């Protein structure tokens, strides 16, 4: 227990505490270390920074669009794959491939696939007379494209958890429903979903913790643009820290994001527990 705790403290506590220290200090590039204590100055500057505020909003928009879509799709696909049909095993195996592709690679490849001039999607749509779509050409389309790429990558993970959860459901309840004459929709709505409720909630929390770190796909596709339309908070903090070397300000921003994430995670976990208790 002690070695694991020491290791965890070393890789978790030390960077966290150091970041906290830098966030309350002025950072001297000449010595590459925090120097004088400045109190809440960096936090005030971060909260007043319009681009930081915008990046929080952009991140919120992305999460509101992506998370429900990924949960619904993941569970829906798992439900379909749970049924007996030929080739199910092969499809199931292939379906997991996006999960093992590195996010930055996903972004790069999808950028090529969606290119209006060269991309295979444009070519395919052209076969039906549909003109090329500029997937990254506007603020709204860029966000939709990022959500699509992230969904492609993340849904297999949700489907994997959902498939395991579906397999663990008691068979006798479904048999009883069948005997009572329930159709597939009634079975789904009145039997499966209530039993899956806690798992859905738990999966949402796990996926939320992954989604809030969104960075690499956007870096590989839009670099936060067009304008600041996809400038999520992690990308902004990374640029502030490692391109502009503003370590004090970016540390304060990172701590703010950590606090917001912890509060929201607590709220989601509380909701998940309440749902579990009710069922």
């Amino acid at each position: 227990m002690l070695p694991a705790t020491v290791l965890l403290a070393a890789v978790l506590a030390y960077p966290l505490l150091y970041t906290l220290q830098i966030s309350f200090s002025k950072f001297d590039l000449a010595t590459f270390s925090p120097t004088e204590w400045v109190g809440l100055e960096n936090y005030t500057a971060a909260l007043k920074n319009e681009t930081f505020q915008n990046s929080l909003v952009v991140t919120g928009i992305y999460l509101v669009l992506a998370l429900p879509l990924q949960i619904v799709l993941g569970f829906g696909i798992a439900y379909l794959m749970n049924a007996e049909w030929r080739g199910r095993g092969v499809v199931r195996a292939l379906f997991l491939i996006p999960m093992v592709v590195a996010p930055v690679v996903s972004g790069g490849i999808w950028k090529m696939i969606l290119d209006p001039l060269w991309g295979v999607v444009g070519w395919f749509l052209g076969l039906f007379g549909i003109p090329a779509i500029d997937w990254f050409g506007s603020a709204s389309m860029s966000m939709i494209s990022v959500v699509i790429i992230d969904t492609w990558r993340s849904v297999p993970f949700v489907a994997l958890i959902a498939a395991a959860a579906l397999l663990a459901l008691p068979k006798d309840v479904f048999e009883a429903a069948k005997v009572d004459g329930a159709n597939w929709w009634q079975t789904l709505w009145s039997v499966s979903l209530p039993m899956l409720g806690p798992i859905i909630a738990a999966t949402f929390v796990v996926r939320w913790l992954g989604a809030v770190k969104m960075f690499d796909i956007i870096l590989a596709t839009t670099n936060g643009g067009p304008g600041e339309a996809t400038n999520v908070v992690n990308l902004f903090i990374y640029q502030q820290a490692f391109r502009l070397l503003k370590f004090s300000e970016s540390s304060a921003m990172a701590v703010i994001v950590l606090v917001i994430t912890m509060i929201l995670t607590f709220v989601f976990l509380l909701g998940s527990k309440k749902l579990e208790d009710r069922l």
Partner: protein
Amino acid sequence: MTAGTKRRPKRLLAVAGAAALSLIALTACTGTGSSDKPAAVDGGGIGTAKKHVKITMMSNDAFAQQWQDQLVPEFNKEFPYIDVTIDAVPYTELLAKGLLNGTDPDPQYDLITLDDPWTPQLANAGVLMDLKNDAKQWTDKGYDWADFNAAPLASSEWDGKQYGVPLRSNMLLMFYNKALYAKAGLAEPTPELTWDQYLKEAPSLVQDTDGDGKVDSWAVGLTWMRGVLSPPVWQAVLNSNGGALFDKDMKPTFDTKAGIAALQTQVDLLKYAPPGATNYNYTEPLDAFRQGKVASIFTWGSAYKSAAVDPAVTTLTPDQVGIQTMPAGSDGASTHRGIWSGSVFKNSAHPEAAWTFLQWMTSKKGEVWTTNTLGSFPARKSTLASTPSQAWLAPVFTTIQSAYDVADKGQMWRPRSPESNAIQEILADQTSAAVQGQTSAKDALAKATDQINELLKK
């Protein structure tokens, strides 16, 4: 009391102990990072047969491997006892890594390649060696600083000191596809081409080249995507009309009629670009040009080899591709400077060997070799006046020399300030917003001015 309850205090103690260890480690590791150890007075020497000197350079990953494989063996023919390792580092990490190394009491690197706008920040942090003073004792008498063109040499100068030497000189230039111009019934561009003329001709260059009734070739490609590579284009237009980004007191001077018109030019060029061009970074316009999809591109000159020479990546040839400075404004042609310079870290244990390597690379003899063998663009007047061994370099030499003269006259480079990166990020955001139509060019520059003033006030 249960066994679990008994174990709880022990667990709490373990966690507290681990946290305390972290705090102790934190305290031990913070504090000043500078070393009290002075740099080697004798420079560390250039090695002997029995004891080689090892130096390491952090370099942009685009050319690190080429230098390691070809340049270092050539250097070792003259200096066999200096072992050089060139580490490839992604562009976005070089500055931060350089600063970290420069302040490390036990540095891993002796040398760094610097992009144009980084010198002020690193020089201010005190991590770079002043080559004309600190390295004077190891400088060859025939090195001839005056032989360098002013524009590339100035990119690593700051506050009256010379912190680097140009290794790979790059300028923002125009390449054009002669066949596509001919197909559109237009004369080939010349260096006298103005922006007004270019914009007048652009619609004709949006054409159907294979007669199937669909447009398959467009006029232009350049960087429009949000990022630090997009503002240089409209900045070059502004400079060519006699404007400037900042005055000598670092007050923004781009929020003018000329500045708005310059940014609007970059926005308007999108009308004559392929679909998806709003997301064009560096490689996309180059790919489009190589595929014959655009008649001209505004890009960094080092791309000429892959656009028109290297058969492994392009079917175009130097005869088919013209190269020149960008179109002219009221004050002359336009360009922008992007020089990779080499610098020696002040905390290097082998500054003499490090400077020997840089000196060799950028000497009259070394630069001729790197230009003819590796195809990198030279900074010396003597090299540019010579006849290159590869024929495709001849028109490139003429263009590069012209671009240096233009840049020097119009001061066509990114902001020179320790806040250069931050300024470029602000300009990148507003350029992108204007390109997307989210804001007008006027409002974009007004917002950029406010944000930059706020930044420089701190």
